[in-house]
């Protein structure tokens, strides 16, 4: 008995480290992509379910780990061998520790099944806004059939309206995940998957691909802009306009319906100053002449490629390169210089453009609001 407390003392580091790890793990916020901060009905119901299960897990954890520690400390032999009764078992105990977990599992299973049947069925909301999301290596395409809009990596949704997302893949399996909008759903070639939710707060929410999809899987990000109905309508109106400066090369777009009249931001009659006009013309020429049109589309021009993101309103987007870079002229220039340096394996080739062309292209693309 020289060291009566030795086992306990030697166990102290583990208590310390568990406590410390637990404490430290919480820090580092503000976690804009956290599933623990639900911002939609879908995310909230998953979060409620998780919290219920977590509650039971904590109880079981405390009881069982507690029993284990008590057993170890209470029955460690102090002075050599203690008399041990050779018990071989106890049927009543066995039955009870079979039934107790079974009971807890029932308490977990009931809300689980209820939630499954709530979230795994198609939405019944007739007013739902349909959005088609297409996963591609390594960016996202979003289509709004209701408005005829195509955009990339940035999805705008009105708060409080059911969003019905149809998921398809153009190449390999991806997974669509905005943690604060709800659980993920795989995006599978040859299948159409579905996901729906109703955002309950305004804000910008990051998301990203959650199924390993090749080289730059980590860089396949996206953003959701959840906004008021008015802001959303304004955005729609903007997106429905043909790109800036294309009005004279293309027939006027169809009449706008969605209350766009009141704030037409860029009238097409030529109030553009000569400088901007020159940039647009030069950029347009460069764009058309550099092979960009093979993959990209700009509404109203001859650029009608479908392999890369639609660039009609690229200047209006918050980020470029699938959510990894802020949409600044410098980043855009870097991207044009060598896409693969920013996104390894990117399908966009290095075009070996001279700096002048890059400058005009950047100016042109950034003007496409």
């Amino acid at each position, binding site marked *: 008995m020289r060291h009566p407390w030795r086992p306990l003392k030697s166990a102290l580091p583990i208590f310390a480290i568990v406590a410390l790890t637990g404490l430290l*793990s919480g820090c580092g916020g503000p976690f*804009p992509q956290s599933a623990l901060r639900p911002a939609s009905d879908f995310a909230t119901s998953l979060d409620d379910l998780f919290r219920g*299960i977590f509650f039971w897990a904590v109880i079981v954890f405390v009881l069982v780990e507690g029993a284990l520690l008590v057993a170890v400390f209470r029955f460690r032999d102090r002075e050599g061998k203690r008399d*041990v009764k050779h018990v071989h078992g106890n049927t009543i105990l066995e039955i009870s520790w079979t039934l107790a977990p079974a009971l807890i599992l029932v308490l977990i299973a009931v809300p689980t*099944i209820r939630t499954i049947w709530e979230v795994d*069925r198609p939405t019944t909301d007739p007013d739902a806004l349909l959005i088609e999301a297409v996963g591609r290596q390594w960016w996202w395409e979003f289509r709004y059939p209701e408005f005829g809009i195509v955009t990339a990596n940035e999805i705008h949704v009105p708060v409080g309206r059911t969003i019905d997302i149809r998921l398809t893949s153009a190449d390999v399996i991806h997974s669509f995940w905005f943690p604060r909008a709800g659980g993920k759903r795989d995006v599978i070639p040859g299948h159409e998957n579905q996901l729906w939710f109703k955002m309950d707060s305004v804000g910008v929410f*990051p998301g990203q691909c959650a199924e390993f999809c090749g080289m730059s899987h980590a860089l396949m990000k996206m953003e959701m802009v959840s906004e008021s109905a008015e802001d959303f309508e304004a955005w729609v109106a903007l997106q429905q306009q043909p790109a800036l400066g294309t009005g004279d090369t293309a027939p006027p777009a169809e009449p706008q319906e969605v209350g766009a009249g009141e704030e037409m931001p860029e009238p097409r009659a030529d109030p553009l100053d000569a400088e901007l006009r020159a940039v647009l013309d030069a950029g347009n020429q460069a764009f058309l002449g550099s092979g960009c049109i093979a993959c990209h589309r700009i509404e109203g021009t001859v650029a009608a490629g479908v392999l890369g993101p639609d660039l009609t309103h690229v200047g209006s987007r918050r980020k470029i390169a699938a959510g990894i870079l802020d949409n600044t002229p410098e980043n855009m220039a870097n991207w044009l210089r060598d896409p693969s340096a920013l996104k390894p394996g990117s399908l966009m080739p290095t075009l070996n453009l001279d700096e002048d062309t890059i400058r005009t292209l950047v100016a042109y693309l950034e003007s496409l609001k």
Partner: protein
Amino acid sequence: MSVTEASHDTAGMTAVHEGTYSGGLWSWVTTVDHKRIGIMYAVFAFFFFLVGGLEALLIRIQLGSPESTLIDPDLYNQLFTMHGTTMVFLAVMPLSAAFFNFMVPLQIGARDVAFPRLNAFSLWVFVFGAFFLNSSFLFGGAPDAGWFGYANLTSTQYSPGVRIDFWVLGLQILGVSSIAAALNFIVTIINLRAPGMSLMRMPLFTWMTFVTSFLLILAFPAITVGLVLLMFDRTFGTAFFNPAAGGDVLLWQHLFWIFGHPEVYILLLPGLGIISEVIPTFSRKPLFGYPFVVYSGILIAFLGFGVWAHHMFAVGLGPIGNTVFSATTMLIAIPTGVKIFNWIATMWGGSLRLKTPLYFAVGFIAMFIIGGLSGVMHSSAAADLQQTDSYFVVAHIHYVLFGGVIFALFSGIYYWFPKITGKMLSERIGKAHFWLMLIAFNLTFFPQHYLGMHGMPRRTFTYQEGLGFEAMNLMSTIGSLVLGFSILIFLWNVLHSLRKGESAGPDPWGGATLEWAIASPPPHYNFRVEPAVHSRDPLWSEGGLDVDVNDPAAPEPHMPSPSLWPCILAFGLVVVAIGAVAKTLPVVLAGAGVVVVAIYGWAFQPLER
């Protein structure tokens, strides 16, 4: 190791065991002795454990800071793919196989396995297959589509080159090894038990080996077929996984997980068996509720075949599928809980000797509970939509496979090292190893629960600043480095103890099972006289064994002769694989020729000369 050596081992146990491992390299290549084969399994498996660990450290170093450029994504994807593949197929499974090999014949009172040469074949197929798979690093890069290799990322369109071919053929080869070994152990355990050892008197480790062997023979064919489909797609241009031609990429996921989930129990059950041996020995008390522990193991294995789609809750199986697979998955928690309760009840009222094997066993239970509880969280299909493919799952599998299986395997190593080598491992270093490993393990993996819930997807080579992932990733990386260091402490313990360790004697722990009745290391024939068993704990019961199993007066048993054919056959298989990767028919045919010759050579070579 043949009859001619009989002359010098009449002196008794010490004289005999000197000869157990003697002989040059050739004697190891041609050996059919289950003990030598077990040791070779252990050495190669530990080597690949270090390789897989190194890959993990590189992964963690890359993730230590946001937007790090230390490792490019191409290499990173190879590293995480090979880390998973290596740890599952080249480290944990063969480490378990090492224990199957060394311990099962001893525990059932047999002189070897039922098919000693088949056993050597399993070993060499594993060794050649493992080096074949890793040789891909030298030829155009290692596999990089994940250890789960989801179609259609693995198609030639999205993964040109030979990386995936290495993976497909490597896994096929390793499957041959596993199935051959499992068949061998099934027959061994059914048929070579000592008189009196009924199934319900078998040691728990032998029981779990038995159950695991059935999982192996039933799970591997599913991935074999999946891999054949993939190979056909890649080599001949079929469209099994090509959506454009009607193929369904989800078929791969189903076939993979019909294998993959039982595979998890293939990794886990041997560990549960080890714990069920260590805890009674160090509690000086028989296992509480033996039949319940046995049946719960069988139940876990059986249920393991009915839960595969819980890896696919996000693919859109529909509410019925998700409900069914949620329910079956939750059921598994019950037998798992039964095991844990019985272990605690075994310690309860016992007289615990706090030796290193027990430390690791208790550490195992503590960590496994955490892994089990996060497992229950995944079993809820709806809640899992947030967790799946996030770092939460990474944390879960490491609590089960590292906190669980690796701790259990270390418990087994500390427990049986004296039996295998005749030397004790140092307790002092062992406990340092334990504490450092336990702390570092939690530091590495506990924060990953939070990372996952805060939205960090797994299998990503980097993460952007501003998502709040920085601190926890750094913590995890620091933990992993310490974890790596703790493994070095263990290595030092082994090297130190092999030279200077205390002599173990036949039974250093006062164990109850048959392996402790003979010398350490055991003579090459194990039991000079066949033991007769009358109870579950033969060495603890009154009267013990009827006979002196080491009786020097008894005639020395004849043992099978060494054979090179198993090694040649294994080599032939790998040559076929090399030819297939290189798409060179003559090499394939040459390999097939070697295989045919080796089969006939083997079949017509007498087992004993």
